[in-house]
């Protein structure tokens, strides 16, 4: 399937990627000037993945970025000054200096959940946001990114398994940047394609060239639409490359020089510039206007950041608890009555149509007629039936993958075997 982009959209994609890149370069300069507090985690080389995935979402949708997803934060409406002040530990940063890097978020406006440093933890959290969104009738999709390394964590597997059993509208982007700190992906995972992780959970997956922003967008948009249609989670593996060390202190000498060269030749921004030129989507002047505009934005942002003070020391012990500083209210997009008795009442019984025997096919053939006649869990209204089936994992024990193509409904990306040791 193809999702055409307008010229403006093409240029907007360029703007976010280039902003992501130039902001990264600005942060490196600030790091060398000792203006960054703590570590600096470069996004270099991964801009197309962050921007292309986030761009496929709507305003109502939720994201939870990881540390190299500044591009996604920019698409969601955060400004360069926010990122600079986070890295510079200033009082006017989104966390007021309580946390750094991309560790911030905004529940109400931009629908961004802050990551933590423990990898994989966002997968169950964004599953929770997704099923709550379904319950509230919001018709939202949630998205989070994990690296190749995070696919080894328990939280990743618990979260994805739960998302799959719940048919949660979650797009999980596995950003395979080839390196988990200093360890290559082959020493992390005994399979070639991380997309294969999806097989174990009976959900569809796709592999995409993570350095091709249009391809990333297309694959993600299809996944997002699929989620929004209530068809459950999708895993997208974006093959890309971390072009710097884990953080600024790490010269990444463990990466073979040839591997850097391979990926250097596939730089997502250079490639996209060529694409825009070849498709007559811009000219030299448009390009230089973009660069000038971004330079100005970044200079202005730095001015704002440098003017911002460090936080007052007494802030250290404030805000541990919510003592009435927040009003907590769910955003209902359906009638609350549907969620309340008597409408919510159901027959508390599992509908078991697959008895799990070895002769699976014949058992299921015999059972399928009965299952069709039964309806879903005895729920009352049509809406509740659908919702109940979704939230309990369709037919409770019957994996949906039997009906849906288990893999790659929308094409595979490059195998990318080159450059792998």
């Amino acid at each position, binding site marked *: 399937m193809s999702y055409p982009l307008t010229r403006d959209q093409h240029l907007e994609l360029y703007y976010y990627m280039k902003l992501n890149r130039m902001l990264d370069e600005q942060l490196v300069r600030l790091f060398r000037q000792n203006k960054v507090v703590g570590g600096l985690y470069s996004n270099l080389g991964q801009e197309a993945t962050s921007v292309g995935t986030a761009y496929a979402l709507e305003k109502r949708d939720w994201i939870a970025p990881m540390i190299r997803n500044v591009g996604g934060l920019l698409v969601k409406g955060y400004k360069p000054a926010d990122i600079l002040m986070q890295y510079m530990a200033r009082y006017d940063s989104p966390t007021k200096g309580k946390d750094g890097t991309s560790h911030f978020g905004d529940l109400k406006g931009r629908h961004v959940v802050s990551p933590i440093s423990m990898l994989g933890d966002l997968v169950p959290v964004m599953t929770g946001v997704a099923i709550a969104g379904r319950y509230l009738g919001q018709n939202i999709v949630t998205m989070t990114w994990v690296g190749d390394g995070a696919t080894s964590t328990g939280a990743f597997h618990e979260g994805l398994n739960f998302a799959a059993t719940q048919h949660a509208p979650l797009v999980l982007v596995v950003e395979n940047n080839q390196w988990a700190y200093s360890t290559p992906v082959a020493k992390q995972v005994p399979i070639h394609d991380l997309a294969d992780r999806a097989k174990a959970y009976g959900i569809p997956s796709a592999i995409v060239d993570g350095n091709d922003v249009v391809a990333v967008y297309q694959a993600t948009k299809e996944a997002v639409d699929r989620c929004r249609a209530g068809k459950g989670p999708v895993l997208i593996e974006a093959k890309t490359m971390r072009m710097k060390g884990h953080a600024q202190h790490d010269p990444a000498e463990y990466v073979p020089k040839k591997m850097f060269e391979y990926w250097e030749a596939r730089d997502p921004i250079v490639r996209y510039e060529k694409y825009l030129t070849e498709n007559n989507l811009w000219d030299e002047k448009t390009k230089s206007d973009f660069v000038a505009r971004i330079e100005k934005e970044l200079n202005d942002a730095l001015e704002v950041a440098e003017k911002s003070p460090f936080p007052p020391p007494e802030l250290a012990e404030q805000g541990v608890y919510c003592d009435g500083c*927040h009003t907590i*209210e769910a955003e209902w997009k359906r009638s609350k009555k549907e969620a309340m008795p008597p409408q919510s009442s159901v027959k508390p019984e599992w509908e078991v149509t697959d008895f799990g025997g070895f002769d699976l096919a014949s058992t299921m053939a015999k059972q399928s007629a009965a299952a069709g006649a039964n309806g879903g869990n005895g729920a009352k209204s049509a809406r509740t039936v659908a919702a109940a089936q979704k939230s309990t994992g369709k037919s409770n024990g019957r994996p949906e993958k039997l009906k849906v193509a288990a893999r790659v409904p929308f094409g595979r990306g490059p195998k990318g075997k080159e450059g792998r040791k």
Partner: protein
Amino acid sequence: MAPVTMLEAIRQAIFEEMERDPAVVAIGEDIGVYGGAFKVTAGLLERFGWERVIDTPISETAIIGAAVGMSYQGLRPIAELQFIDFIACCFNQITNFVAKSHYRWGAPVPMVMRGPSGGGVHGGPFHSANPEMYFVHTPGLKVIYPSTAYDAKGLLKSAIRDNNPVLFLEHKFLYRRIKEELPEDDYTVPIGKAIVRREGRDLTIVTYAAMMHSSLEAAETLAKEGVDVEIVDLRTLLPLDKETILQSVKKTNKLLIVHEDTRTGGIAGEIAAVACEGAFEDLDGPILRVTAKDSPVPFSPPLEERFLPNVNDILSAARELAAY
């Protein structure tokens, strides 16, 4: 109204809160169709449906993680840990994700994590834990451990309505052993307030959960010996009600702390420090403590009996202290 068990009081709290507010949802292992390992959630699914009563895979990290995500959407999830021992499986989610959320980026987490805790039922090393101190040592959480049916219902309601993550520990030895008449009307018990269960002049026992009952029993015996014991039931361990503790110590001048948790790093040490900082001049004797032994909870009855503190342990410590 007929008297109800602590278990029934907890069930009523969840039921009534779900009836009151559609933002309240329940999530956990075997809580729906089966009604929970202890039947605390029996009847919930039938009344509130599949969307609000979510049976999960055996994935504690996913349960807590999903509950956080739901709370970010403005829901108020009640996450059940089938036995509280399994809270160790989601320690990271609770201590790093949940507890730091509001502090780091101003995202409140209005959720309750609850589960059957404590020993005395021969549950062995993995079904008897008192994990409170891992979490009392985690700023951002609130920790509740009630001793009566009335408090359990009132505190659980407060916990569900609270804007912060609350760990609600239910002593499973008490589930069906204590009964109480409860008010018909909606009521809550404030979080962070201890209560004086028994007034006395000679000696203060600070305690909570199942040991509150052992302490009360000991107090009756001591009364016959002429020692008038005051019993402070903490109810909430975090935040700790220092004021009520200090008031009582200043009145009786003697402090004995009793808990079922193990000794080293138990809350008795913290309370002793509070007393030293706030009432040193008022103390007429050493601060003593009666606790479980520093070992895992053993399985076989004679071993578990030896491990757990009992009325006799409390009596001898109290007599020793009263002699000063």
